[in-house]
């Protein structure tokens, strides 16, 4: 176990910007395990780093549109402080009412409840409300536009809902936020967070059958596939509920080498893998990326135990996990213990308590059974 400095309040811990730019990442998304887990704090932390280093950035938000207030706890949605020169996706109404001028660079062609969304450049400094874009396709376009207008790092705030689970898909790297608000029990928070981290850091598929280029087959497919031992490729019907049936009837013919799911992975499918662990022990489950896994942590833990041969076509770069030991109700976990245990449970990801300035990194062998043969 390597503990990277930290544990005391008297030394510097996090350098997000450094980590991001060293790897050449041009976009980053922030996603949270729950409300009030400190995602915005982490977000603002990175912003501050960028402003202090005069790093040209663009800011956008992915999620359901139309929330003026935090829907769950009815507190004000935090507005974001931006410095002069920052590029931001802002809705028409906000531009008109903003208390410092914004230069309008381009219209995105997308609208929100506050009107058309524009790419703007701050001509002063102050708080601004970032427009929320509800689709990953549109977000890709916005990121492209921001790059064209000179932003070297685009920071995407992923709101908490199903739409934003696609945030890691559109950015080069991702930071996940977790915290005491997720569950009153620290044990539970750690288990759930670990499951999510495992899902987000699944390995990329990198193997082949001698007579079939799996990557090519998958890339050219718009539908879920079953690839048999003898190279038989079958397209599955789109209804995810019937995947199990289709897999079962295929198993009667020949052994399955790969199952490719291009959409969401739900409980039923993983349970099928669990209950057919013997006949599917040499089968690799391939998915697009880990953010498509929508199962609870219990099913996930069980799945890893009994099958676990899973890999992705598009990996997510989860560069850090931030944790907030205080919940929105005021309950707290002991901060060091929380960070330490999270780090131990996850391994190989930096765990940061931004507010409390705690950083943990445990280098261990990846405890996943990797999906490589």
């Amino acid at each position, binding site marked *: 176990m390597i503990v990277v400095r930290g544990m005391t*309040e008297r030394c510097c811990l996090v350098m997000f910007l450094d980590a991001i730019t060293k790897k050449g990442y041009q976009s980053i998304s922030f996603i949270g395990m729950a409300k009030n887990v400190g995602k915005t704090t982490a977000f603002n932390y990175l912003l*501050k780093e960028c402003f202090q280093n005069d790093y040209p950035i663009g800011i956008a938000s992915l999620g359901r549109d139309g929330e003026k207030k935090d829907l769950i706890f009815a507190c004000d949605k935090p507005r974001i402080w931006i410095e002069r020169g920052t590029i931001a996706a802002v809705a028409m109404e906000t531009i008109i009412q903003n208390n*410092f*001028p914004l230069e309008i660079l381009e*219209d995105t062609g997308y609208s929100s409840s506050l009107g058309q969304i524009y790419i703007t450049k701050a001509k002063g400094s102050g708080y601004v409300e970032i427009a929320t874009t509800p689709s990953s396709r549109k977000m890709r376009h916005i990121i492209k536009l921001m790059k064209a207008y000179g932003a070297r790092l685009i920071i995407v705030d992923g709101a908490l809902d199903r739409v934003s689970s696609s945030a890691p898909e559109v950015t080069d790297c991702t930071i996940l936020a977790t915290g005491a608000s997720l569950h009153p029990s620290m044990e539970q928070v750690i288990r759930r967070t670990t499951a999510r981290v495992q899902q987000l850091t699944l390995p990329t598929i990198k193997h082949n059958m001698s007579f079939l280029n799996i990557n090519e087959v998958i890339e050219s497919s718009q539908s879920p596939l079953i690839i048999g031992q003898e190279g038989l490729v079958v397209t599955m019907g789109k209804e995810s509920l019937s995947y199990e049936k289709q897999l079962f009837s295929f198993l009667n013919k020949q052994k399955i080498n790969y199952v490719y799911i291009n959409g969401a992975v739900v409980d039923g499918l993983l349970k099928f893998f669990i209950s057919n662990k013997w006949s599917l022990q040499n089968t690799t489950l391939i998915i697009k990326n880990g953010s498509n896994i929508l199962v609870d942590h219990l099913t996930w833990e069980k799945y890893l135990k009994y099958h676990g041969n899973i890999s992705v076509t598009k990996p997510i770069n989860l560069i850090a996990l931030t944790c907030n030991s*205080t919940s929105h109700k005021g309950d707290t976990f002991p901060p*060091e213990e929380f960070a330490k245990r999270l780090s131990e449970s996850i391994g190989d990801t930096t765990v940061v308590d931004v*507010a*409390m300035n705690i950083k943990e990194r445990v280098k261990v062998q990846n405890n996943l059974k990797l999906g490589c043969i």
Partner: protein
Amino acid sequence: MEGFTLAYYIRDTKENLRKNDILNLFATATPYGDKIKENLAPYPADKEELLKQEFEELKAAITYLKEVPKSRFEEIKDSLMQIVSVDLVIEYLEGKAILNSPMLFNLNKFLFIAKRVADLMENTSWFSNTQIRWQFNEKLYKLLKIKASYSFYIGSYGDEAYEQFIFNLRKLEVELSNLIKNEENRLLKYYALEGRVFIDGALLVNKNSEELVSELAGSDAFIVTKETFTAVTFSRKEIKQEILLKEKIDELKSVLQAKENQLYENLSDEIREHSSYIRELTEKVGKFDWLLAKAVYAVNHSATIPVINSHEYIFKVHDGVHPIIKKELQGLGKEFSPLTIKLESGVAVLTGANMGGKTITLKTVGALLIMAQMGLPVTARYFEFKPADFIYTSLNEEKDLVGLSSFGAEVQSLNEVIELKNMWGLILLDEIANGTNPEEGIALAKAILNTLMKGKCSVLVTTHFDGLSSEKGVVHWQVKGLRKLKDIVSIGDIYANFDYGLEKVTAKDTVPKDALKVAYLMGMNKEVLLLAEKYLVTNGEE
């Protein structure tokens, strides 16, 4: 019927001619092209000159399109796609309201792209036509400072004094930001917390660091703003200099707001002088876009420009197809048999077997005429017509008006037809008077057709009744239909052997009798068929 000369009259209650579907085949790129498309109506006969001009312009557009290199065309199309609506801007300008920044951005972008399109079109023969071309309003572009980009920032329109003001404000803001930075760093250094960062002006400290907590709690520079079981939030107190600077900046910011409002007002006033130019430009861009969409369709689907015949009352189609039905058939893997027919004033009767495409013929003739009359290229090898005043359809599908029996509804619509008879137009009737007993039905149909025959209009009517086609003065068209009746043994053979073409019948032919054959092939009960055959021979008597 005076009213009808003012506007073209279409009676197509059930959208049988598919006018809107047809219009959607023309892919416009700008909101202004869309607007023209949405409001497009057929030209009435007395606007023949305008229709002629429309076709001339379309011809020029097609010629241009055939010559232009593909890459250049793509560039033009891409640019058009970026045209944004400035309707709200125009509304504000004309209503003497002040434009806001998104509106001004839209205006900038609209003008910028319009100029780019004009530049791309420069020196082409099509664009040298003043009806199409738009002028570059140098004054307006200069006023809006549109040069290399269309981004909008109100500050670019301020004078020197404004710039000086902004400069001073920035200076103070930088001063404040440095002041805060220095103060934060000073505190971090003082308490040996280098490398930590203030978040929202506060530090969160773990209670385990008792020493630090008590140190900060005792400091004048911090106040405790929040405390939990494990941590304390220390917010930094603002220093005096900082407070003064903030006040000054706030003051300047409200002055700036007023200055900017003034800039918006002045700019709006100056632009207002050009509002008619802007409006005209939107119309021209729309027209350009619409012409291009029509030309693209014509080239891609080998549609032709209709020929206007001012002298003869005539609708003449060579190898015409209904663009929508053709597409739908293609989707089913079937071909649309092109249609050739010539219609004049008077009555033409169309006969043919069941499933012989008689109704489709009516729909196609109607659709092509509407297309021509709207100034569109038509999907035919050749189309000649005298611009009409109306088109009237009464197809079987629509004879279910609420509260009336099918016969009652038909009587009502036939009455309307008779009123139209002295105008030049096209009347399409499907299965006339078939809603009642055949004896009276034929009598009524004959009477109606004889009445219509005396008028100016052209009537195309389908029927199964024998007597109608042999009426004096009636032109008789027939679907060629199942030629080799003997060879046909299955339903598949019907489609393979069916000739959907039309032929003009001169002799006193009877209506083709292949309904029983078709019914047989469709698998009708044999007993019933035998009985029917028996009745046919004995002419209905036992």
